[in-house]
């Protein structure tokens, strides 16, 4: 919906890359200064090229998991009454063999009064305290980008929304209205293989998921709310959401298409410093409104999700962080009794641990990091080692791996086990 296809893009992106990279830094800044002086717009962006491939055969997918060149351009302008932001990507994708233009931001920020901000348009939205675990952040993600080695920026997909923020005393209230449902980009078989419960096997591009998205303006709207305050360095927040599961967590029994069932979330979080580190806790109750208290086997049950985390410096320029996360399925006995024969059964509790290690070296220009998900209950996990080096203020090179494993093909991480891949990228920022 947000994508337009072009074919001249690779040439354009390459030309831009060559032009920009051949210009010395001072000159590169100069043209941006000229644009700023004449139009008031601040310009920036990057050219990024990356490639990745699978480390094992996947009967359902190509060997190559990533191959692309991307140009991102960003423009910003300040006015007395507000701020305009524009950000767009031109992408040539070798794996999917197409070129696309994608608008990542087009927004208008207004200051209607001293204690109110209003942001209208396409924008990236984030809140909550989890580190790569999202409980109350019900804004769209791009899991496909996250699993193939694109920059972390692309994990967050933009929303078309109106964000109203009101500030009074120590409280702030954010209300986000999305007039029509913005789903996440999930693993659909197009590029990454997944587990198909109907056939009880892994599937890929020959059996892509077809879904039915709620797409009626205003009736299929999403509402997200956060009330937060600071209390002696602690951030406390309450959350509410009304909309749909962001990934297809239901099946239409007639068509076999995947569905995005109705969902409400009620949650809370707290974050602050403790013992020289950062501690956080977050919970959310996922009310799967169409699951009929667990008696509808085609729709995911309601859940209670809970997270606790702690981050601390464990050495010089070395940070470690641990999280424990649990999903508790509600109405489990109904789920068990209504589960069709032959379907793999989920546990009532899904436990997960995450570990993050980040080491900075050479004046913080070399970053070595690892993020690991491990579920002792599902016996599966996902490892994300990464290394990046800033060659200069403009050039950055990075590489890493996305490793998936699982005892069982049907579990959360186990279903991606044929997608284990490595990647490398080169970026020129201007």
């Amino acid at each position, binding site marked *: 919906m947000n994508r337009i296809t072009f074919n001249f893009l690779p040439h354009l992106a390459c030309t831009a890359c060559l032009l920009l990279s051949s210009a010395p830094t001072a000159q590169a800044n100069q043209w941006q200064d000229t644009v700023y002086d004449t139009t008031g717009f601040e310009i920036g962006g990057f050219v990024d090229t990356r490639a990745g491939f699978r480390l094992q055969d996947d009967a359902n997918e190509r060997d190559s998991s990533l191959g692309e060149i991307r140009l991102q351009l960003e423009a910003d302008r300040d006015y007395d009454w507000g701020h305009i932001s524009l950000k767009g990507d031109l992408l040539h994708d070798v794996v999917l063999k197409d070129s696309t233009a994608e608008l990542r931001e087009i927004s208008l920020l207004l200051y209607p009064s001293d204690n109110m901000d209003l942001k209208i348009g396409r924008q990236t939205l984030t809140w909550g305290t989890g580190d790569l675990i999202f409980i109350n952040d019900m804004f769209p993600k791009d899991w496909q980008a996250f699993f193939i080695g694109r920059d972390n920026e692309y994990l967050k997909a933009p929303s078309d929304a109106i964000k109203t923020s009101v500030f009074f005393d120590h409280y702030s209230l954010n209300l986000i209205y999305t007039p029509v449902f913005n789903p996440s980009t999930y693993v659909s078989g197009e590029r990454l293989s997944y587990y198909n419960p109907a056939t009880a096997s892994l599937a890929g591009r020959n059996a892509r998921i077809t879904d039915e998205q709620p797409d009626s303006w205003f009736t299929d709207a999403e509402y997200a709310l956060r009330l937060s305050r600071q209390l002696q360095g602690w951030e406390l927040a309450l959350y509410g959401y009304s909309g749909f599961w962001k990934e297809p967590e239901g099946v239409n029994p007639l068509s076999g298409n995947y569905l995005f069932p109705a969902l409400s979330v009620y949650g809370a979080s707290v974050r602050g410093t403790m013992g020289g580190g950062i501690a956080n806790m977050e919970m959310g109750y996922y009310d799967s409104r169409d699951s009929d208290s667990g008696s509808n086997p085609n729709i995911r049950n309601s859940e209670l999700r809970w997270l606790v985390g702690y981050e601390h*410096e464990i050495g010089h320029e070395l940070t470690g962080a641990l999280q424990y996360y649990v999903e508790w399925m509600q109405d489990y006995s109904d789920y068990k009794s209504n589960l069709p024969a032959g379907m793999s059964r989920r546990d009532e509790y899904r436990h997960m641990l995450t570990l993050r290690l980040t080491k900075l070296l050479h004046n913080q220009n070399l970053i070595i990091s690892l993020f690991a998900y491990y579920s002792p209950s599902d016996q599966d996990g996902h490892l994300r080692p990464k290394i990046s080096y800033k060659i200069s203020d403009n050039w950055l090179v990075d590489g890493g791996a996305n490793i998936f494993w699982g005892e069982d093909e049907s579990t959360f991480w186990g279903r991606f086990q044929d997608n284990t891949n490595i990647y490398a990228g080169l970026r020129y920022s201007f």
Partner: protein
Amino acid sequence: MKTVSLTITLLFLFLSALPLQAEDKTDVAAIIDQANLTSYYQGQDGRADVTLTITDNQGRVREREMTILRRDVTDGGEQQFYVFFKRPSDVRKMTFLVHKKTSGDDDRWLYLPALDLVKRIASSDKRTSFVGSHFFYEDVSGRAIHEDEHQLIETTDQYYVINNTPKDPGSVEFTSYTVWIDKTNSMPMKAEYRNTAGNVYREVEVLEVQDIQGYPTVTKSRIRDLESGGETVSSLSNIGYDISLKESIFTERFLRRPPREVR
């Protein structure tokens, strides 16, 4: 006659007071207190554009450009800092907020605009590099006075020379450091850090002081890593004091949406 003698007495007293005022201070705590106020607490608040030029031990140069806002909660005590990054482009529009405490850990937040993500940053180690430069967080926001024992080791024509030893040696990488404080304006002009072997391995030097709105202000300084050979030069411009920064600027609202004062 009486009036005359009183006048003479007063005059004498006044004159005798003069050399006393110009006499060297001997109270090390007073010298350190004044130096701390001069370096970190000028005015009620302030702003500056800062350029850090980082040269590594192989001569490669990197630059960081940012605007820093500062607001004192109490003079000599708690402070708030707001940093808006301008260059290089990979950090453009990132913002950084610090609520500096005099005891306990500071509160730090980093905002990444591409993800709309507000990250809380652990701050137990204040002696880590600030944005990859040779400046430590503590060099930017000031080291709490009560963390060191201070000893006045020499008074020259120009400087008070003070030796400082950490009360908790395990929390820092130095065993002691010596500071040269200008007697006329209480500005620390140079600091040398020594390691366990007693060698100076790190040197902070003020290269330029300007009078801004009546406040002596360091506009150029340099930190040299004498062990590995790199250095960072910090240059300040567009400096202003007492600009009536609101307390609300130093909150999540403006972390996500940079205020006009930094744009």
